[in-house]
């Protein structure tokens, strides 16, 4: 692959009626240059995708634009006037509104109030509730949403809440609307509805900054793409000038050789005559996951492909005691069992690494050593503490084997980078000597080097006989590692594919079309 065939469009060549102009914006955090002299232009009536891997500086850029972070150097101009935002309220007053992935509304208040909060029409007797709800309903209707505005926000789906957040932005008369991963927990129809709303707003002249991890959606909705990498600007491109492959290359920045080397894994033959390590038959939970079947044999890596919210996390949580299934049976090594807590699962040598590293993985204030030992220690119980020499040996072994940096067992885990935290977690689970390892998005948000380390380790462990369930949003990664891929959509398992028989496009096709509209 050549490094660059597309020349970025130069700012001067375009019309200069930009609504947002960021020039040479630099933001420094202790020890990190989060944004390094980045230029960014947003014009009215366009949908502009901001792309980059985790840590590229997307969210920093957004936060600079919305007044959450202050800029160390560089300028931000809105409609040609230079501005310094000291708070979100400042940015909103200048017409810049943001809708975040985790919706920032008040779940305890009514839909109407959430739309209007802080801008309620007032009469002599204070807030005029009738007008408030009527105005809110009008705003919602203009986005094609018919809702009882007096209902409590939390009684609605995430998708509706997202649209409520967008209507709120419209009440603020936003000229710039920032959508930060708005689609990650929406199903297909909901995404369609959202896109209809976005197109409507674009046609009204609103400038939309769109962040998403889903390439399909980017290519469906965007007019223009800006790519960031490691806090620097890679370039700005018209959508038609930038094919997908090139976009990915620009985001990742280097060739995938290092990762490609692992691909041998997928072709390895698996002995399926023995009892599977785990076998799930019709395992499901009402309102969470429709009954699904899955089995994993010793030495096998089974990937799960599906979008975020497709039920992939929900499925594995039912397999490891994190949540309890209410239908179906689970067998471990051919024996039917119930796994009602993660502890039970660990006793049956099933370890689960959550996708939510910060909230459900690391214990930030404890040291690397304590975090690695946590799983073993929990299984032994509090009375039988692992002896110091034994502990030091185990910790040293995993720090070395996984390449945790800095290799200091007494460092607080919270101070490590995401990739190294992930390695510590992997160490914790491996230390419990599992027979089945469930990894939910183990490579998300970490740098390429750490990603390669983790993939290599997983492939190596499987070769030694460990059964692995591997979830990732990156299909290439799944196909490279796994012998079989279970495909999920809309909280339902739609099939299991042999990965040697399909490629990425094949899986996407399968995900998108198979079983459409009918219950399998």
């Amino acid at each position, binding site marked *: 692959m050549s490094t660059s065939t597309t020349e970025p469009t130069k700012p001067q060549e375009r019309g200069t009626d930009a609504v947002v102009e960021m020039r040479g914006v630099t933001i420094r955090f202790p020890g990190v240059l989060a944004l390094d002299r980045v230029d960014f232009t947003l014009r009215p009536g366009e949908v502009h995708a901001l792309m980059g891997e985790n840590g590229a500086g997307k969210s920093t850029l957004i936060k600079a634009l919305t007044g959450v972070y202050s800029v160390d150097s560089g300028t931000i101009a809105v409609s040609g006037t230079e501005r310094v935002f000291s708070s979100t309220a400042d940015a*909103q007053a200048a017409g810049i509104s943001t809708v975040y992935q985790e919706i*920032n509304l008040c779940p305890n*208040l009514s839909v109407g109030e959430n739309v209007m*909060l802080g801008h309620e029409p007032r009469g002599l007797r204070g807030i005029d509730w009738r007008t408030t709800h009527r105005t809110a309903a009008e705003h919602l209707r203009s986005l094609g949403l018919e809702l*009882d505005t007096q209902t*409590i926000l*939390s009684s609605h789906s995430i998708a509706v809440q997202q649209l409520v957040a967008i209507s*709120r932005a419209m009440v603020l008369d936003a000229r710039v609307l920032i959508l930060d991963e708005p689609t990650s927990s929406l199903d297909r129809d909901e995404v369609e509805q959202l896109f209809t709303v976005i197109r409507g707003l674009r046609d009204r002249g609103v400038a939309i900054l769109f962040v998403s991890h889903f390439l399909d959606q980017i290519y469906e909705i965007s007019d223009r793409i800006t790519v960031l990498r490691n806090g620097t600007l890679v370039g700005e491109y018209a959508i038609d000038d930038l094919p997908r492959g090139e976009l990915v290359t620009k985001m990742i920045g280097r060739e995938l050789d290092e990762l490609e080397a692992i691909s041998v894994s997928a072709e390895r033959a698996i002995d399926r005559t023995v009892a599977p390590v785990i076998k799930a038959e019709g395992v499901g939970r009402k*309102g969470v996951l429709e009954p699904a079947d899955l089995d994993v044999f010793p030495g096998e890596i089974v990937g799960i492909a599906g979008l975020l919210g497709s039920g992939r996390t929900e499925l594995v949580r039912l397999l490891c005691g994190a949540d309890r299934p209410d239908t179906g049976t689970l067998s471990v090594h051919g024996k039917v069992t119930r796994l009602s807590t993660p502890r039970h699962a660990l006793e049956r040598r099933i370890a689960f690494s959550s996708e939510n590293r910060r909230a459900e993985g690391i214990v930030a204030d404890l040291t690397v050593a304590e975090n690695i030992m946590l799983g073993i220690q929990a299984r032994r119980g509090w009375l039988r503490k692992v002896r110091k020499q034994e502990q030091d040996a185990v910790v040293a072994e995993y720090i070395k084997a996984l390449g945790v940096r800095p290799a200091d067992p007494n460092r607080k885990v919270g101070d490590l980078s995401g990739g190294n935290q992930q390695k510590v977690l992997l160490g914790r689970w491996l230390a419990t000597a599992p027979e089945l390892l469930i990894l939910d998005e183990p490579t998300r948000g970490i740098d390429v080097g750490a990603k390669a380390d983790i993939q290599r380790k997983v492939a190596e462990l499987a070769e030694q006989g460990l059964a692995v369930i591997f979830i990732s949003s990156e299909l290439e990664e799944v196909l490279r590692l796994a012998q079989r891929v279970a495909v999920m959509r809309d909280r339902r398992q739609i099939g299991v594919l042999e990965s040697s028989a399909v490629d990425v496009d094949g899986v996407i096709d399968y995900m998108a079309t198979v079983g459409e509209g009918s219950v399998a």
Partner: protein
Amino acid sequence: MSTTTTTPTAGRRIVPPRLSEYARTFVARHASVMPMLAALVILVLILIGAQIHFGDFVNPRTLSSLLLDNAYLLILAVGMTFVIVTGGIDLSVGSVMAFTGIAAAQMLDHGVSSAIVIPAMILGGAVIGLMIGVLVQYFDVQPFIASLAGLFLARGLAYVVSLKSIRVENEHVIWLQSTRWWFGEWYLTPTGVLALLTVVVGALVMKYTRFGRTVYAVGGGEQSARLMGLAVARTKVLVYVISGVCGGLAGLVLTAYSGAGYPRNGIGTELDVIAAVVIGGTLLTGGVGYVVGSLIGVLVYGTIHTVISYMGAEQSWMRIIIGLMLLMFIVVQRVIVVRAERRR
């Protein structure tokens, strides 16, 4: 999971809206008032039970004195509702009430005019509230600890003013208590009117001002409220000031009620207030609660108190019963929360 073709939504469309439909709409709109309604039901049940048991319980005289006896508690509960709805807590209210009460008695004893003393009480409460609010908002101190400092400060200051009780003979203060406005068999005292006014003003502020709505927004999600551009900092400081003002006002009412200032007044009152507010349907986690609910909570509390006096039972039962009611309410609230989480 195989052959069913009719989806439930298709079926629902045929059936005309029924009572259950209206109930569902009501719940979707007003789920948060359910605990308050439950408190109301309990209040009515207690009153009916007492009426049957004693023969003559529900009469104008008992009910009128219910308001009179619990006026100070009601005023404190209104302030506490603001604080708890933001997700905070104010432990200082009982001590603030004692401090302003004893300080007022001392000043009146020295011949200071009540026109100066009464505003000074309110101001004193407000200042302590302001201190707590500033600690909470600007120094990231947990409300529990910040208001604990307020509790210690006010209680200590009360003892600094006087270690003994001081009689109050000021005619204006006595008037607040001794005046009875009769409406047939019913009566109201100025202290009762003050308490009811506090409830009305509190309820209107919560419902009809942007400040009041911001109180709810902060309780629903402080980070969200901030990102929505609301005045979070100002609101959080102000709720403690309001609670402090209510503490000062309650000090006035209690001084009038007992005819004296006493530095040991209101020890443990903060717990009674919190209990009454929670029984009235306010969630201690914040975001949900009504001033009117706290009125109901105080009435439940006061009625149980009266019932126990009628029965001639040990007042120690009071604490046990209130403790049990508190338990019942928090378990019910917990169940509601769990069910709501499961539905998602």
